[in-house]
């Protein structure tokens, strides 16, 4: 059984494919390794595909349509994309209001909280709101759980 469930923010998911200039690449990729080993149940949200695609197409990456399509197809093959339930949308609205976040940002936190999962993110707004954890924190937590399980 997985030690922890993890919902990945779009910024962490993008690091699974891109490394040049990135922080915490090894830790972000360690989460995928753990997912392959089934010690982490990794998922993204349905909106992650739009965020990753937009960032690649319109951001500094200036990726072309073919590159974006390949990355999005690959993302879909790695882990399930969760669709927020009505109650999770309600919780997202509450979190957005409480922490002055956009509804998109808060949806990641709401889905993770509702499903008793950790949110892996490097987004400073989600981290400052205490709604997510850096990949390095999660890999440390995973290593600790594995040490406990190995005793």
């Amino acid at each position, binding site marked *: 059984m997985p030690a922890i469930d993890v919902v990945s923010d779009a*910024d*962490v998911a993008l690091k699974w494919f891109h490394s*040049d200039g990135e922080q915490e690449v090894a830790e972000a990729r360690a989460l995928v390794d753990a997912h*392959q080993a089934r010690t982490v149940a990794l998922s993204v949200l349905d909106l992650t595909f739009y965020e990753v695609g*937009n960032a690649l197409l319109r951001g500094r990456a200036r990726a072309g349509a073919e590159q974006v399509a390949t990355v999005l197809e690959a993302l879909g093959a790695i882990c399930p994309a969760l669709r927020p339930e009505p109650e999770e949308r309600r919780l997202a609205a509450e979190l957005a209001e409480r922490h002055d976040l956009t509804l998109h940002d808060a949806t990641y936190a709401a889905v993770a909280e509702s499903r008793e999962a950790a949110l892996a993110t*490097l*987004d400073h707004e989600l981290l400052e709101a205490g709604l997510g954890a850096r990949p390095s924190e999660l890999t440390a937590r995973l290593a600790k759980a594995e040490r406990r399980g190995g005793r």
Partner: protein
Amino acid sequence: MRSEEPHIGIAMSYNSAMAARAVKVMVSLPEDLLSRIDRIAAERHTSRSAFLQEAARRELGWPDPAVIEAALERGRTALAGSGSFESADLIRAEREARDAGDRRR
């Protein structure tokens, strides 16, 4: 199965393209696990059966490690020449641009 585990009947159903019919099965679960399932199912306004179906599909549908590895390779090859950037900055900029666009509407 541990002998101290209580035997609790759980009705599960499945739908197939060929025949949508519910099949009841008997499974044994520890009471504390069943309590967690019921609590989360209630929070999500779903039934115990629906929750267990979703969990089973998730487990059965877990991607093969070789499929994940191949997908990582395809994605990394696609972005191999995309240069240096920090994904958190890219995604944050996209979120702020979207938020600014929403506020202007």
